[in-house]
């Protein structure tokens, strides 16, 4: 058990730092949050630079243009980029972190050839069409239908919380292909070309007053059958393969960012009780950063982050919530401007305990999958209640 970086990790870090130093100085100014064309241009330009420098697809296999770097280098990459305030993955998020890895693992040769290189170079932007108004925590309860009709599937339904729906050229789509099967068994995973007729995208305004998510309305959209990824009705498994690509690094950028916020808050904290709370939150972030190293170390050896990976989201979200509340108490009314970074972050991080599995769902997962406590039973179907 040690925390010493290996010589090769140190060398990687030094090279990356030098490249970041040189490259970040040449970037254009960051675009405004609601200027989507500018954001696409900015983020895909950054992806191209990463690609040209060999830093795109850190975890991707070499045969797909990735670096196939060990988890420790992924960790360093994310840490250094965050520390240097390099651009976030931004509009490339769905493509590089979800769709690309899924296609690599489950796509046909033609699907891979059509999309994977473009995603890696920043030539193709993806969005996600998973959740539905009535299928959030219970994602497998989704009802968007995809009915086979010759060499197409006809898709009708309504998706929500579609990140980058405004600008995605392709969407990751989950739709029900067998409504008679048990709910996890009748779902398929599709590549959804977002320019097909019958697709309507409507931005959702968040509590930040901006629109990071969209609703996507699908009205008899004819999706070519060769857009099916993996086997029909096997989409629930397909959508879960993506996770293993993270190898313990999922919250690294968040962690670095949180620690920076804590350090920036410190000079404003004069009240003794608030200082103690800050010390407590920092101790938690320190521990979660150590846990990240534990997860990355374990993933490097076993391919799986184990317990540490299962509890990271819950622990991080709750710690970040404490930091957010502390910052609001400390700042008081003098700085209640949404453009104040602490305020913006407090609002943004409210989504951490909700999105991608609420803290309540996370506690179920820890309680059931780790501790082995019994699952909730299904309620009787309506009409059969005792």
């Amino acid at each position: 058990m040690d925390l010493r970086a290996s010589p090769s990790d140190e060398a990687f870090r030094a090279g990356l730092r030098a490249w970041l130093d040189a490259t970040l100085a040449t970037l254009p100014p960051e675009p405004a949050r609601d200027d989507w064309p500018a954001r696409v241009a900015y983020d895909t330009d950054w992806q191209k630079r990463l690609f040209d420098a060999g830093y795109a697809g850190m975890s991707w296999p070499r045969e797909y243009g990735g670096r196939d770097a060990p988890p420790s280098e992924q960790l360093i990459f994310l840490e250094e980029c965050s520390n240097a305030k390099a651009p976030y993955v931004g509009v490339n998020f769905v493509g590089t972190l979800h769709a690309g890895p899924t296609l690599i693992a489950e796509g046909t040769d033609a699907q891979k050839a059509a999309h994977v290189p473009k995603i890696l170079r920043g030539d193709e932007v993806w969005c996600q069409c998973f959740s539905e108004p009535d299928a959030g925590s219970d994602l497998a309860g989704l009802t968007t239908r995809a009915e086979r009709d010759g060499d197409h599937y006809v898709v009708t339904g309504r998706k929500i919380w579609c990140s980058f729906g405004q600008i995605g050229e392709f969407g990751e789509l989950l739709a029900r292909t067998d409504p008679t099967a048990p709910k996890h068994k009748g779902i398929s995973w599709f590549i959804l070309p977002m320019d097909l007729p019958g697709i309507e995208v409507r931005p959702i305004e968040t509590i930040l007053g901006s629109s990071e998510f969209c609703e996507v309305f699908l009205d008899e959209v004819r999706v070519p059958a060769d857009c099916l990824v993996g086997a029909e009705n096997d989409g629930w498994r397909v959508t879960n393969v993506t996770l293993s690509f993270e190898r313990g690094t999922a919250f690294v950028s968040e962690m670095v960012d949180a620690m920076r916020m804590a350090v920036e808050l410190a000079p404003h904290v004069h009240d003794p009780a608030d200082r103690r709370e800050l010390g407590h939150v920092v101790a938690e972030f320190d521990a979660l950063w150590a846990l990240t190293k534990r997860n990355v170390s374990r993933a490097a050896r076993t391919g799986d982050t184990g317990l540490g990976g299962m509890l990271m989201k819950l622990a991080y979200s709750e710690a970040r919530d404490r930091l957010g509340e502390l910052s609001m108490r400390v700042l008081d009314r003098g700085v209640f401007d949404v453009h104040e970074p602490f305020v913006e972050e407090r609002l943004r991080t409210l989504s951490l305990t909700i999105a991608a599995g609420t803290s309540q769902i996370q506690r179920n997962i820890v309680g059931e999958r780790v501790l082995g406590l019994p699952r909730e039973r299904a309620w009787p179907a309506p009409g059969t209640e005792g």
Partner: protein
Amino acid sequence: MHFDLTDDQEALRDGIRAVCQGRFPSERVREGFDRETFDALGETGVFSLIADGFSWADASIAFEELGRAVVPGPLVWGVLAHGLVDGVPTGLDRPAPGAPAMVEHLAAAGAVLVLDADAVRVVPADAVAGVALDWPLDPLTPVTRVTDLPTGEVLAGADVTRWRRAGAVLTAAFQVGMAHACVEQATAYALDRRQFDRPVGSFQAIKHLLADALVRAEVARTAVHAAAVTLDDPEVGDLDRAISGAKLLAGEAALKNAKASVQVHGGMGFTWEVDAHLYLKRAWVTNTAFGAPDACADRVAATLPGGA
């Protein structure tokens, strides 16, 4: 002793609630505050309650209803300065030298009341220089960062200590109303929203979150009523302790319950469309007025023997 609403007070509560439901539904509230809102509220009599002979307990019952509807505006100042200044009143505690001074609703205001160490002073609104925030945290509470706050003139007959106390009670009452509204709105959603083939409110995780929220709101409500009654009749208790405790618990209830409401609403709670965020943002804003929660807790501790 009858420490419960009288029939008259229940009628007052129901009356104000009906007014809010009729004239301040969510769509109207979202249009924000202006002179017209002020006049409409003035017609209901909420600003003149004290002048009309009602008690602070009555006024706090009314403000609880305004909070429930999250009505925007410098409402507390409307009561404090009723009949004493022209136009819409707003106000602030005089900041320490060098501290930022923020005034809410300056554009709509005619006069700014400044709570000084020993007096209430009036400054004409157009004499206050400042920069309006582009994006105030609460979209319904415009805020101006003051760059020049004239000394103003002493408002004769205004007891600054009493203003601070009454301001804290009314603000706390407003917060209690917000806290209860959050429980009600989140409960309604939890009854309606189904996941895993059952209402999400049937899950203990949600049920207990809401139960704790209700307890917080109701305990805070009782504290506010006790503070208001003590403001009316200071012999029945330790007034500063009652007010500090009420403001502390009400502020905490408003904030935690609004967060609980966001959480229960799930993804929808993170949208502009659902009202939960309006309560959360107003909770933060009101917690900075007339005594922040931490300062209130310190003051309660200071009232204990050997506690100064």
